[in-house]
């Protein structure tokens, strides 16, 4: 892995962070006032949850900011850690047996770090197939060597799925650092900032629109809180935001809007798929790491589904 080549951060990043800090300050102030005036300092589930979410956002924004300041190295390390936390949440809830021990050790101690090292050294040819090809073949071999056939197919499939979701897909975020776009040198952190901001604000805006005017449930079997109104309003306004943030990107405004629409739709779909899996396992949240949000996977489900598609769109049309 190359050591940090700390170039001065692009000026747009400073503007962006100033803006995000402003929004968070406003949210903190509103939360503080709500707690003081409406709840009079008494416990109130909705207001307390709102405040927990706002403070979690502070932590997430500061973590991203520090990683951006360290350049590619910081981004790779941060998302490597994010993958680790997500993977442990996922595997903790999956059915495994003693016979899977060595396959699990391989997942945590070989494939997870190796994927991020490969992203760090920009070996696209290997990191894009490491998990879909090599892990896909290696893991069931190790599981089979233990000679335990109970629910074998299910165990092998779940472990592969865990790696794809928690390591492969998430590693596409730091992989954005390796794209070489003419006239956009040193601006790769902006690609990440734009993606994370657009997709995450789509989540927040869907929640807000749903609370304001949500009536018709969109997928009652999967998620009781998702509504048609929240979906349309949230995706539309986050797409508009993506277009307004075009100054962060190498895209034209109409391209920014179109890509924002694609990643927001993928993000929404990711939320649905991950909800279906939680339903299947009978849990409400993946974990408890982020107060007010649940686990890492609860916060990242949309980014996970959006990142690989976004990466390949940019790589295909913007890299010469």
């Amino acid at each position: 892995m190359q050591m940090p080549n700390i170039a001065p951060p692009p000026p747009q990043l400073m503007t962006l962070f100033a803006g995000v800090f402003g929004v968070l300050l406003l949210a903190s102030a509103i939360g503080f006032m709500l707690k003081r005036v409406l709840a009079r300092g008494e416990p109130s589930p909705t207001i307390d949850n709102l405040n927990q979410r706002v403070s979690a956002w502070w932590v997430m924004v500061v973590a991203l900011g520090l990683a951006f300041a360290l350049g590619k190295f910081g981004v790779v390390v941060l998302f490597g850690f994010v993958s680790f936390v997500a993977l442990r949440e996922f595997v903790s809830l999956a059915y495994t047996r003693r016979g899977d021990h060595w396959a699990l050790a391989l997942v945590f101690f070989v494939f997870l770090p190796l994927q991020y090292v490969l992203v760090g050294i920009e070996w696209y040819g290997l990191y894009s197939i490491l998990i879909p090809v090599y892990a896909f073949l290696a893991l069931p071999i190790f599981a089979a060597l233990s000679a335990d056939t109970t629910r074998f197919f299910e165990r092998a499939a779940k472990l592969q799925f865990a790696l794809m979701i928690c390591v492969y897909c998430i590693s596409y975020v730091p992989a954005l650092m390796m794209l070489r776009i003419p006239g956009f040198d040193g601006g790769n952190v902006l690609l990440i900032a734009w993606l994370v901001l657009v997709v995450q604000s789509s989540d927040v805006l869907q929640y807000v629109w749903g609370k304001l005017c949500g009536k018709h449930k969109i997928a009652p079997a999967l998620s009781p809180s998702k509504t048609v109104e929240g979906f349309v309003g949230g995706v539309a306004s986050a797409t508009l935001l993506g277009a307004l943030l075009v100054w962060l990107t190498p895209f034209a405004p109409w391209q920014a809007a179109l890509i924002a629409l694609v990643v927001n739709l993928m993000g929404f779909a990711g939320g649905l798929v991950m909800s279906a899996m939680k339903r299947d396992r009978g849990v409400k949240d993946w974990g408890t790491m982020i107060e007010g949000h649940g686990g890492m996977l609860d916060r990242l489900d949309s980014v996970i589904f959006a990142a690989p598609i976004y990466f390949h769109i940019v790589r295909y049309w913007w890299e010469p």
Partner: protein
Amino acid sequence: MAKFGSRVAARALCSFARILTGARALWKGCAPTLDQRIYYGNHTSHGDFVLIWASLPDALRARTRPVAGADYWETSKLRRWLIHDVLNGVVIERTRTEGKPDAVQQMIGSLEKGDSLILFPEGTRNVSDEILLPFKRGICLVASAKPTVECVPVWIENLNRVMPKGEFVPIPLLCTLTFGAPLKIEPGEDKEAFLERTRSALLALCPPRA
């Protein structure tokens, strides 16, 4: 100096166990108070009592001693140091042995000094497909000798997957410890009945299986 060394080791062990397992303590049936207690749990891994011990608040941990088997812990210098100096354990013979102190008397003696205990009534690590093995009689012998002591069930979920018996590479999965409501032996309660009561109280904390 030696004492300082074991204190540092104890801290380090606690942090290591908590980070590795992401351990979450759920005090469902009682609060972490200084009442004298026997914390008893399901036994699936060597890490079990370290984890219960590590998830107790500092003040409780200082007064709580894990009960451990001599056949494992007295076999090397490192293990002896860990169990006696770091973990402050009560080391017992798993089977009655001539010329060795009686396990039940040792536990009662420790309770009389005002300490709490961590105990695994299954007697050995459970590596079967059974959720919980039958209990040995030790817990009710101790409880009937000291009927004021509360027995608190602690269900440890997932630790057997972190470190199965016979493996040496731990997998960093998330573990939860669920502390249930305390039980006391009733005056005149049948020993078998109490044993059954403690066992079903522990089983009731086990999350539904996939």
